[in-house]
């Protein structure tokens, strides 16, 4: 995968990104490259700068310094709407659905299908309902039972799927960011969510996944990018690295001295809290 992708220009490049909030340096000179069809995992301890990097990419914060290039073209992302227009969308950790809208209404929120009735734009509720149901079922393999129930009544995994559906409905989506897709889920739903993410892979889209779960990261990712204290600690090809090495990069143990926090955390466990 990475060998093929390496021959083309990256889908996305972030170069020399820095961000400070007042005196606090959240990111310092971070580079990121993402290729089409690739899943890049971003890992790091709490406060390492993962979320800040993603928020810069989705127009929530402006970067203090640095350049973003999409398909080789430099772009400026001042707000959320611009990022969506550029085809960059994110599924957030807090599962930001509106509780008292149904799944289709959530999927199409802000992006409704309308038809004109006597020149007045009217929501095409039936059309959105059937298209959203098809999308959830065929693209993500999720069935909700009652499609008209409010998001309030859905399980964590179903909500996550609806949130992903919301990003996918924009047919222009090129880069999809998944922020802790399994953090709020039980073991069974985690397994299904990993299936959903796996289905998304291998298309033209580039995926970025933030996760604390190294197990998920190793199962799904093509490359792993490690952030530590707002700086890039390293990027590794998943097939050529080990949990030991990634853990070492996360906590800052040198390769010569693998003892320390990394060894105590254990190879299979979750990192951070």
């Amino acid at each position, binding site marked *: 995968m990475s060998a093929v992708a390496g021959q083309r220009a990256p889908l996305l490049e972030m170069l020399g990104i820095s961000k400070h909030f007042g005196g606090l340096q959240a990111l310092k000179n971070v580079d990121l490259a993402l290729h089409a069809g690739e899943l890049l995992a971003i890992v790091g301890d709490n406060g390492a700068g993962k979320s800040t990097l993603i928020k810069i990419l989705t127009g929530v914060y402006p970067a203090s310094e640095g350049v973003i290039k999409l398909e080789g073209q430099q772009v400026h992302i001042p707000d*959320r*709407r611009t990022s*969506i227009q550029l085809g960059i969308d994110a599924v*957030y950790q807090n599962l*930001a*659905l*509106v*509780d*008292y*809208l149904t799944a289709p*209404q959530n999927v199409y*929120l*802000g*992006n*409704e299908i*309308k038809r004109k009735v006597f020149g007045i*734009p*009217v*929501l095409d*509720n039936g059309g959105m309902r059937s298209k959203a*149901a098809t999308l959830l079922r065929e693209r993500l*393999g*999720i*069935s*909700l*039972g*009652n*499609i*008209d*129930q409010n998001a309030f*009544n*859905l*399980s964590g*995994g*179903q909500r996550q*799927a609806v949130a992903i559906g*919301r990003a996918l409905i924009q047919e222009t989506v090129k880069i999809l960011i998944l922020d802790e897709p399994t953090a709020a889920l039980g073991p*069974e*739903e985690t397994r*299904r969510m990993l299936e959903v993410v796996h289905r998304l892979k291998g298309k033209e889209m580039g995926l970025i996944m933030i996760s604390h779960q190294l197990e998920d990261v190793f199962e799904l990712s093509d490359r792993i990018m490690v952030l530590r204290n707002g700086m890039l600690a390293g990027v590794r090809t998943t097939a050529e690295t080990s949990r030991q090495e990634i853990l070492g990069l996360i906590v800052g143990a040198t390769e010569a001295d693998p003892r320390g926090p990394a060894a105590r955390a254990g190879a299979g466990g979750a990192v951070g809290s």
Partner: protein
Amino acid sequence: MSVPSVAAGRERAQPAFERYINIMGPLAMIVVIGVVMAIFEPRFFRITNVRIILQDAAIYMVLGMAMTIVITGAGIDLSIGSISALSAIVMAIFIKDLNVGVYLALAMALVVGVACGLVNGLIITVLRVPDLITTLSTDLVFRGLALVMAAGAVLQRFPEPIPALGRGRVFGDTIPIPIIIGVVVLLVGVFIYRFTPLGRYAIAIGGNRESAMLSGINVRRNKVYHYMLMGAAAGLAGIMLTGRLNAVQATVAEGFALHTIAAVVVGGTVLFGGRGTMLGTLVGVVLLSMVTNALVILRLAFFWQLVAAGLIIVLSVAFYSYVERRGKGGSE
């Protein structure tokens, strides 16, 4: 509801019963009050009295439609009584003092209403003053302006169609025009709520403001629209009110805001936003107008109307809490 299954069957539609369970409580109260009144006071169900109830409810329906959207969007408007008064006074002055054509004056009433709503909306979204404080303050401002302009006068005897809009009847002198206006406004409200981005975004803004923003919805602009719609409705209510008595003074429509908010909440719209129902608001306005009328007919003092209105609000909201808790327990 267990884990989603890849091979699970077709999606079911939600049964209508579940969708409307919320308005069963106030609907039951309407039936109970109806039965009690039928037994104790036959005058209650005379056609003239039913007309009076519905004519009263129609004005609150006009206000309640817009208020349902404002509250759903996590707003509140305490200034609507003053907006109605100011709109009506401006209209009256245009007709009586400035000899302007009646249709232009009617349009002015609506323009004043929308302008007041725009002011509310801009204070809330640009100056970032909370909705409650903004409209509490502008309530005083709009009322004060109305008092200054009317200078204590009662303006009366307006040309048609103003009296017709307040108390005229059509279809062989049977159906009051205000009731028709109320029904049309209700239908417009249902349409806005279900079939327009304005209604959908109100639910999103009230339910999860951050999510609405992340979806690219212009939250502030939508909030301004909510208050402009509310202002237009208050202007229309001011016209209907003027027509009903064929007279207006600057102190009319006092207490309309709280009555309307009560009706909306009794109907099942959640005061903190995110959930609402137009049909519930219809039930709420009819219930409150029925109770007010029943107490008048029973010759109870006005003060008892206040007691009754308070009790109904508490009982309705308690009912919703009960349904909510039970529904949650049942589905998990």
